């Protein structure tokens, strides 16, 4: 389990000599690829173009002037199932899209990992679960996921009409997989949508997302 521990030599090669002045300097680098600075709340939401299940590419930029919700998902994840099997997620999708909000469901599972689906499978899931997204995006390479720093399923983002990221984090304040916890939870996404629609600042703009790890390659 222990992450790769770089030798001092390789660490110094990486960071230069600025740190060796005082005492011993060492650092531990977990085995992870460089992850560019993810999207920050309050800043312009990074643009992306990813194929939808229809086969046609979808760009965030094309929804400028509309409120956009991004939902990272993985249909096998117990935390996602909590919100789909109780109808919580679909209800939110319906309420949002009914008010003109664009809802993009994103699947970043890479091929061969849990949650990876083909376009027909994805569409079948939408039908069978009575989901109501504007589009389902297959981010198989994890491009959009890494751009937004999506770590969990579900992981939710709200972009306002000006293209600014105004919410990033969990769907609600009950970080469990228990279905019973949907009742009475404070739904952060619903609150954020109500705030942006009313032209008010989002009260809780950043929360810790909870759920399963996004299955990047």
């Amino acid at each position: 389990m222990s992450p790769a521990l770089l030798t001092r030599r390789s660490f110094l090669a990486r960071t230069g000599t600025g740190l060796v002045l005082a005492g011993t300097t060492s650092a531990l680098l977990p085995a992870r690829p460089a992850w560019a600075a993810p999207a920050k709340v309050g800043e312009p939401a990074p643009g992306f173009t990813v194929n939808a299940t229809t086969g046609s590419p979808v760009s965030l930029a094309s929804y400028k002037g509309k409120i956009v919700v991004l939902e990272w998902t993985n249909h096998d994840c117990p935390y996602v199932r909590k919100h789909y099997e109780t109808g919580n997620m679909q209800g939110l999708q319906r309420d949002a899209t009914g008010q003109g909000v664009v809802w993009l469901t994103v699947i970043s599972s890479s091929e061969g990992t849990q949650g990876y689906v083909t376009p027909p499978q994805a569409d079948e899931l939408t039908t069978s679960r009575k989901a109501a997204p504007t589009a389902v995006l297959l981010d198989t390479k994890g491009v959009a996921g890494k751009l937004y720093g999506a770590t969990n399923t579900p992981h939710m983002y709200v972009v306002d009409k000006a293209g600014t990221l105004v919410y990033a984090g969990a769907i609600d304040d009950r970080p469990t997989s228990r279905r019973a916890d949907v009742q009475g939870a404070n739904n952060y996404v619903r609150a954020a949508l109500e705030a942006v629609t009313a032209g008010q600042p989002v009260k809780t703009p950043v929360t810790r997302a909870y759920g399963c790890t996004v299955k990047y390659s």
Partner: protein
Amino acid sequence: MAIRLLAAALFGGMLAGSGLAAEPARAPTAKSPAPPGPPRVSVTLLSEVASIEPGSSFWVGIHQRIAPGWHTYWTNPGDSGEPPTVDWALPAGWQAGPLVFPQPERLPIGPLMGFGYTNEVVLLTRLTAPEGLTAGTTIRLGGHAAWLVCEKICIPEEAEVTLALPVVAGKPVAGAGAAAIEQARRAVPSPSPWPASFRATPEAVTVSVTAPGLEPDRIAEVWFFPGRWGVIDHAAVQEVTIDRAGITLRAKRGLLPTATDSDLDGVLVIRERLDQGQVSQAFAIKAVAGSASAGPSLSLVAALGLALAGGLILNLMPCVLPVLSIKALALVRHAEASPGVVRRHGLAYTAGVLVCFAVVAGALLALRAGGAQIGWGFQLQSPLVVTALAYVLFTLALSLSGLLAIGGRLTGVGQGLAARPGYAGSFFTGALATVAATPCTAPFMGAAVGYALTQPPAAALAVFEALGLGLALPFLALSLVPAWRRLLPRPGPWMKRLSQALAFPLYASVAWLVWVVSRQAGPDGVALVLVGLLLIAFGAWLHHAARGAAPRWRRAATGFALASVAAAVALAPLAAASLPPAPTAGAPAGAAWEPYSPGRLAELRMQGKPVFVNFTAAWCITCLVNERVALRSPAVTEAFARKGVVYLKADWTNRSAEIASVLGSFGRSGVPLYVVYPARVGQAAAPEPRVLPQILTESTILEAIDKERL
């Protein structure tokens, strides 16, 4: 991980051979559909005792055995995941404490980072039995445990755990789970003995742990597990620097902008290379917002200003008062002289102060550069210096009493030079004033000196010299401005009376210094110092008595007097080498305070109690005055009791790197320092400690205490 493997072996062996009354874990229930197959985690409930003593508390542990390749989670699960929970279903009257987690491991998952456990872990809870249990009965303890277990995919699992234990009056014997629980308790992070602080920028968070004395070469690795999400990027590189001051750790900032608004808690795991392998230690740290390694946020100009003001006020501090008397008399004596002479005396005095400050500050900086954890007033941590100072002030007092004629040649060096009418006399009066002033910390001085010690030598010396200039300034001003001197009374016979009267503050100082020696070198040291003072007095009397005698007698008397003083000087190192009194186990019976230790402070804070810490030293007059005037007042004692404030006393009379480092974390290098650690309210993070003024009054303390919400 060696420990964990060892623990695994232990557990395996133990469980195989034990008839533990625990139900096997159940597979996930129908409520949470999961992929088919056996549970990835099997849980059992362990107890450290084999029987229950009514009214007692004991540890139980949820033992998770985790399938290879899978992991469960810590309280902060990292980038994803969920910490395990237990809902206890205990018989009436029983109480269960919170889940206590052993130190976690890092679990890298692609670009993400989780914090949790592999192979196995024991999550601890302290149970308290009610008093009214009947011996001979059997009690079933249990609850509903739920956890998330992940490999690439995550599965929520849950199980009922139970354990049946007989009720037996009297001390129970160790239960079958005792060894496993003991092992797990050792892996629970202990309260950090070191203060910590952090600094946040939009890009990074830097945590500084004041852990002096770590050997950098022996530290194999350091990792900080943040207690909450959003503070630092969990998966980011942690750049670790270890030097004499401690550990500095820098990591990319997390996503929650408000995360750095409050204290930063977490677990610092240090793996140290020992001769027989590596040992990993985990410390629960709470880093307070502020100056991570940057020192107190004062500008040089502000520090110089504070130092000058501090030096001025130093003239009025109790420890400088005796020397002030010498200056006052000298000034009056020089008042008749020409302005030029007076001016030169003023300059010589100032030079004496400044040179002495430079010497003391230079020594302090050099020693600190060498790694010594010392601060202002450090000279008085040496009983030899205290003894020498007692001798000098005593000789000076004898001189003022009239036993030694001013200008006599056989007196102690400092006094002789200080009393010499020439400019050298003025110079050494300045030096003496400085030496006597060092134990005192005046208001404003603490911050300035604390700042100085974090600066490069040139800036540090400048601050110390500003302090010296402040000390010398009143006398210098009087000597430079003739108009002000006219305000002084004319010289006359009153000077003799005044000089005799002023001897008494000096005797008082000597008495105080002897008391300091008693704290440093015990009763034997005191006896030797007193004999030394006696010899000095005898020598002075001999010298004085022989003044009118024939030259032959005078020479003999002088010889004896010199021998007497030499004997006193020879006694000083012996006195200093005497053993200090055996450290007492605690505060004197009935005292309102407890001795300070970082562990005790951490413990009290974890219990949510407000704490008042008095950083003091026997050689610090300001500290003693504050204690007498403010801290021991009935109103303060009553307020402490009423608000449940625990009063800890950190005694810096002798050197202590531990206390020096705490002072350093508040940007100080000397005592007194008074800190109120407010109580934690509910589950909120504990509020930051507040520093009280260095000159305490009853109302200052009462006001600070009243602000405490309890």
